[in-house]
């Protein structure tokens, strides 16, 4: 199994924040730190399949959650992941009060701007954790 840091978004379906979490995770692992991080499917990990457990158990994780339920952080920990950082996507949006970010289906340009900011933070954290390892 890859030693890459696992970046796990909640990908929630109900609000813009779930979509933003998903897109920020994708941008980070695909474009910013592809050699150091990868994403995992939260739903599959939570099925409890042995193959899924092997993907997370004992690995460093960064979670991104869109709502206070913190599903990604809680689920990653339950499955044996070592959660090094819990991001709350809503905090990034608080810095841009009043913007129209879009919805849970699509993001606006402003929404993508915030996503890019979150992705950059995630990438920085991945690099920091990489140095610690």
């Amino acid at each position, binding site marked *: 199994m890859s030693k890459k840091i696992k970046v796990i978004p909640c990908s929630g379906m109900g609000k813009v924040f779930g979509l933003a979490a998903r897109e920020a995770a994708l941008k980070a692992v695909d474009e910013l730190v592809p050699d150091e991080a990868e994403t*995992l499917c939260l*739903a599959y990990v939570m099925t409890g399949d042995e193959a899924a457990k092997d993907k997370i158990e004992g690995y460093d994780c960064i979670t991104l959650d869109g709502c206070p339920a913190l599903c990604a952080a809680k689920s990653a920990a339950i499955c044996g992941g070592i959660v090094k950082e819990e991001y709350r996507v809503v905090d990034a949006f608080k810095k841009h009060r009043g913007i129209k970010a879009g919805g849970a289906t699509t993001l606006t340009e402003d929404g993508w701007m915030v996503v890019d900011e979150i992705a950059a933070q995630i990438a920085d954290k991945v690099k920091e954790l990489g140095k610690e390892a």
Partner: protein
Amino acid sequence: MVVEKNIKIGVVSCSGEDCLGGTISRMATRKMMDENTAYTVATLCLPLFLAGGEEERGFARKYPTIALEGCSKYCAKRATEKYSGKVSDVLNVADFIGDEMAESKLLSTRNLTDEHMQMINQVLTELRKKLDAIAKDCAVANGSDHELTGNCGCSCGGNK
């Protein structure tokens, strides 16, 4: 127009981060949610469902629910049946676009092409059919066996 908003149907959709099928299922579900239907469609957040969301699990116990899968791991169906009860129907994106395509690289919604949008619309059409069929069954069971109309506000059954 006959509207039966008291008929509620849940969609537990894969919002997967493993492959393209997750992007397609997510988008199809979201587009469904953005439509006006003659009955109530609720999306149940799969991560919350799995993390112990009692509201989501309770809804799936009480109302008919469709599992929309992004790939053949069937996470949405398995979760629903583990924590709530048997799903009313299952739709697997892979049945429409093929296993290989469904399990291809995960895609950002930023990079969706016309081809992907066609896939999403194909799944959406099938999802809508399944929801309509369940709504009709519910109407019969409720003793209100009349035609539930589509979204456009007349009785043609079409969509906006």
